[in-house]
């Protein structure tokens, strides 16, 4: 029984001692950011517009309404409104209800 955790611990240390994987410098390419879309975290490129996000999610041209940080984004501003890291976005539609 005691052997297993020791071995696991050794593997763990070994992994930590490895050099970190080489990453591209994100700031020199597309900077990624995270927004909260309908309550769920979602990664997207910086400078994504509302229109672009709707397109990526498959809602381009569909009848939806958009709220950004609790303010309505009118359809006429979907192209120009850019998203920022940490933005909270809601996309809603009409469904059956009483």
């Amino acid at each position, binding site marked *: 029984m005691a052997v297993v955790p020791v071995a696991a611990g050794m593997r763990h240390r070994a992994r930590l001692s490895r050099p970190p994987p080489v990453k591209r410098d994100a700031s020199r390419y597309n900077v990624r950011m995270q927004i909260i879309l309908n309550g769920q975290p979602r990664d997207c490129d910086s400078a994504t517009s509302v229109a672009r996000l709707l397109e990526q999610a498959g809602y381009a041209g569909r009848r939806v309404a958009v709220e950004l940080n609790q303010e309505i984004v009118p359809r006429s501003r979907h192209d120009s409104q850019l998203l920022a890291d940490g933005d909270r976005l809601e996309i809603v*539609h009409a469904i*059956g209800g009483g």
Partner: protein
Amino acid sequence: MNLKTTAPTDPLIIAGKSYGSRLLTGTGKYRDFDETRAASLAAGAEIVTVAIRRVNIGQDPSAPSLIDALPPGEFTLLPNTAGCYNAADAVRTCKLARELLDGHRLVKLEVLGDQKTLFPDVVETLKAAEELVADGFEVMVYTSDDPILAKRLEQIGCVAVMPLAAPIGSGLGIQNRYNLLEIIENAKVPIIVDAGVGTASDAAIAMELGCDGVLMNTAIAGARDPVLMAHAMKLAIQAGRAAFRAGRIPRKRYASASSPIDGTIG
């Protein structure tokens, strides 16, 4: 009296707009959009409520939508705030609905206070109603059957006051006819029973009391045959309204013969 010529002279007027039907229907709990549409048509409904909800990211966005089944050119869509438990969420929902429906101002305000009873939170309802009216919305408001509160909502500027007759979805029927009567007699805006109807006679009773209309969902959608029940409700609303306008006889304790007393043989 010629019913064909009298029918159009008795419209339901909400926020200055005339409606021929006094039956407003919800669009929840149906099997599919075809059934929703068939029942709405069988009910003769002109105003149908819709809910505003987050789209399901990742699901097929090109799937048919409710608005395809009930196009705004054919029905007056009444977005509701069902599911909101505070004024702020209700106001946000109405603003989203206005954006969604191209500036549409008519909304159904519903701020719930309790998940078990779905009774309205009247304090939050009043707060939301004030904010929405100030923002230019035409507010049809779901409320309790309190006559004082109903009057207050009218004074705030709501375009219709919609008291419950029993808890939402309960099908218990008209449980509060004297409260409803008091509300109706004091009102200058349409009073529409918004919850509790179970079957056609309940709808007729509401209309006989003098309600201006009835809004229902579960009583139709939950029936074994929703389309047939929608038809029954349409007839009940028409019958109840006609009976109210005709003026019922007073209740008497003892009999009153229908045939003349004079001229009997013997």
